[in-house]
C-alpha cells in the first residue's frame, strides 16, 4: 500500500513528473546510443584487426616480435602447424613466412613486409581475399604473382598487372631482388596495413630464397571468441619454448581502445546521471514542500519516520526508474535498429581508417551494461532522495497540520 501511495503521489503533478521522466529518458537514450556507437566502434576495430591479419592466437619463435629477422623462423614450424590443426576448438590455421623487404616501382620505393602464404589456408584464417577491389587472389597461372594494398599501389603509382620489384635479405644474408606481377589489389579498414603488407605464395618465396620451407608465424582461428582462452591454455604449455600470444597481447592498443570504449560509456553515463541527480532532487524537494501538511498528518496519525523516509525514497526510485526504463527501451530499440542497418560513417572514412575501424558501424551494448545502468539509476535515485526524505522526516506535525 505504501508502494501504491508512492506511485500515486508521483502522478499528482503529472506535468512535473513527466518532465523529469522525459529528461531522464532522453538523457539515457542519448547516452546509451552514444555508448553503443563507441562500443560498436571498439568492437569493429577488434573484429577487423582479427579478420585482417591478427587472427585469435599467433605462435612465433620467442623474441621474434622484437627481432623479426628472416632467420628467426619457428623450428619445425610445419610440424607444429599440423599439430595445432588438431587441437579442440581450433577452426583453422595458417603458416606465414614473413620477410622484410623494400618495394620499388619506377617512381618510388617503400618498406613492406612480405607475407608468404598458402592461399587456401590463409582464406580460412583471414579475409584479405574478400577485400580485393581489383584482380584475383592467386587464381591465375602467371609467374611471381603478388597481392598488394591499395594504399601501397597509390604510393608507388602502380596498377593491376604492373610490375613491382622487391629486394630482401635471404637466409644466408645475401640480398635478393625479384620482380612480381600485381594480380590483386586489396583495401582494408586500415590504410597503415594496406601500405605495408604484400602477399605472395610461399612456394614462390621459398624458390626465390633458395630455402627449405620455413614459417615465422602460425595464425590460429578459434571456433569462437569465447573458446579462445581455452585453446590458449592448451597451446601455451604445449609450446612453452615458443611465444604463444593472443590477439590482445599482440595488439594491446586495439584491446585497450576496445576496453576504453566501455569505460568511456560508463563515465558518460555517470556524468548524465550526476546531472539528472540534481533535477530529481529538485523535483522531489518540490513534491515534499507541497505536501508538508499531508506529511505532517501522516506523522501525526502514526506513520513512523522510517516509513516516511522509505515512502519518499520509493517515490524517487519509481520516478527515476520510470524515466530510466523509458530511456532503456528507447535506447535499446534505437541500438537494435542501428545494429541491424548499421551507421554509415563513410563521410569520415579517412579518419576511421587511421583507427582501423569499419566505416559501417554496428552499435551494440552488452546486456550487463543494461543491468549496470539499472543499478546506477537506483543508486542515483537513492542519493537524490536523501535531501527530500530528510526534509520530510523532520517535519513538525503540529506546525505542518496548520500549513495551508
Amino acid at each position: 500500500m505504501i508502494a501504491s501511495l508512492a506511485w500515486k503521489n508521483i502522478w499528482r503533478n503529472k506535468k512535473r513528473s513527466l518532465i523529469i521522466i522525459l529528461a531522464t529518458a532522453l538523457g539515457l537514450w542519448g547516452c546509451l546510443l552514444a555508448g553503443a556507437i563507441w562500443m560498436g566502434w571498439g568492437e569493429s576495430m577488434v573484429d577487423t584487426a582479427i579478420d585482417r591479419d591478427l587472427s585469435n592466437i599467433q605462435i612465433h619463435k620467442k623474441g621474434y616480435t622484437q627481432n623479426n629477422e628472416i632467420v628467426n623462423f619457428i623450428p619445425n614450424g610445419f610440424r607444429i602447424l599440423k599439430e595445432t590443426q588438431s587441437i579442440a576448438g581450433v577452426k583453422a590455421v595458417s603458416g606465414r613466412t614473413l620477410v622484410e623487404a623494400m618495394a620499388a616501382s619506377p617512381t618510388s620505393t617503400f618498406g613492406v613486409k612480405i607475407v608468404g602464404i598458402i592461399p587456401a589456408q590463409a582464406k580460412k584464417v583471414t579475409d584479405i581475399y574478400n577485400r580485393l577491389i581489383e584482380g584475383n587472389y592467386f587464381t591465375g597461372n602467371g609467374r611471381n604473382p603478388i597481392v598488394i594494398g591499395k594504399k601501397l599501389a597509390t604510393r608507388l603509382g602502380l596498377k593491376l598487372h604492373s610490375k613491382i620489384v622487391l629486394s630482401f635479405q635471404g637466409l644466408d644474408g645475401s640480398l635478393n631482388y625479384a620482380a612480381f606481377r600485381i594480380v590483386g589489389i586489396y583495401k582494408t579498414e586500415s590504410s597503415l596495413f594496406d601500405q605495408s603488407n604484400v602477399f605472395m605464395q610461399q612456394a614462390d618465396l621459398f624458390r626465390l630464397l633458395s630455402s627449405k620451407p620455413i614459417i615465422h608465424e602460425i595464425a590460429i582461428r578459434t571456433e569462437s571468441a569465447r573458446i579462445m582462452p581455452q585453446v590458449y591454455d592448451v597451446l601455451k604449455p604445449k609450446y612453452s619454448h615458443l611465444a604463444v600470444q593472443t590477439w590482445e597481447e599482440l595488439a594491446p592498443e586495439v584491446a585497450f581502445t576496445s576496453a576504453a570504449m566501455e569505460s568511456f560509456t560508463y563515465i558518460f553515463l555517470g556524468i548524465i546521471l550526476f546531472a539528472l541527480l540534481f533535477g530529481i532532487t529538485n523535483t522531489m524537494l518540490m513534491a515534499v514542500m507541497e505536501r508538508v501538511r499531508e506529511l505532517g498528518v501522516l506523522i501525526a496519525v502514526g506513520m513512523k519516520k522510517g516509513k516516511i523516509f522509505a515512502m519518499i525514497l520509493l517515490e524517487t526510485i519509481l520516478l527515476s526508474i520510470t524515466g530510466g526504463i523509458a530511456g532503456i527501451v528507447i535506447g535499446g530499440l534505437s541500438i537494435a535498429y542501428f545494429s541491424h542497418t548499421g551507421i554509415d560513417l563513410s563521410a569520415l572514412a579517412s579518419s576511421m581508417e587511421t583507427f582501423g575501424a569499419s566505416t559501417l558501424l554496428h552499435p551494440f551494448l552488452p546486456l550487463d551494461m543494461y543491468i549496470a545502468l539499472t543499478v546506477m539509476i537506483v543508486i542515483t535515485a537513492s542519493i537524490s532522495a536523501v535531501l527530500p526524505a530528510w526534509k520530510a522526516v523532520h517535519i513538525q506535525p503540529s506546525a505542518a497540520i496548520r500549513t495551508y
Partner: protein
Amino acid sequence: MPLIELKNLSKTYNTTAFPVHAVNNVNLKIEKKEFTAIVGPSGSGKTTLLNLIGGLDKPTGGSVFVEDRDIATLKSNELIDFRLHHIGFVFQAYNLIPVFTAKENVEFIMLLQGISKTERDKKAIELLNAVGLGERIDSRPSQLSGGQQQRVAVARALASRPNFVLADEPTANLDSHTAESLLDLMEQLNKDYEMTFVFSTHDPRVIKRAHRVVTLEDGAIKFDVGGKN
C-alpha cells in the same frame, strides 16, 4: 484512574521578543467515555492544549498522563507509535490523503498497525458504514463534500481502535446542517463504541452538544462545566 490527566501542564513559546504562555499551568482529568469540548476565543490555547494531549507538541512544564503513562517522556518514534495505537485524530481541514479512496484512507492507519488485508478491508467497510458512507467507499476525497470528508476522517480516527479521539475544531469548515449531522455521528459513536471524544471549538452549536465544557482563557482553565470531577 482517569483516561487523561494533565498535571501543571504548561507550554511557553520563546520565539518572540517576550515569552508567550500558550498553555499555563493546566490541571485537568478526563475520564473514559467523556464527550468533552475545549472552548475559548482564538488564541486562548485550545489547539496547543490538544496538541499537547495528542503528543504532537512537547510541554515546557508539567505532564500529560494517558492511562497513567507520561507521554511527555516518550522519544519521538515511541510517541508516533503511541499515537498510532492510542489516539484518533480529526482535523479541522479533514486532511485525508487525496490520492486514496475513502476506504484506503481508513485502511491506511490499520496498515501502519500491521493488521492483515482481510481484517483491514472488513473493518474499513464497517466503519464507513457506521459513518453513513457505505456507498462511497471507492470515492476519492475530491469527489466527496466537506461533511462527507470529515465523516471519513472520523472513520479513520476510529480505525486504529484508539483510547480516545482528539478533534480540533471539527465543524469549523462545515455548514450548520452538516455540522449538526457530524455531531450526531460523534455522539452516536460515543454512545455505541463508548469512545471518548475531546474536541476544541468556538462554535456555539457544538458547545451546546458537549457533555462537558472546559473553557480556556490565556492558556488557563477559566471554567470546567459538566464533568465528573
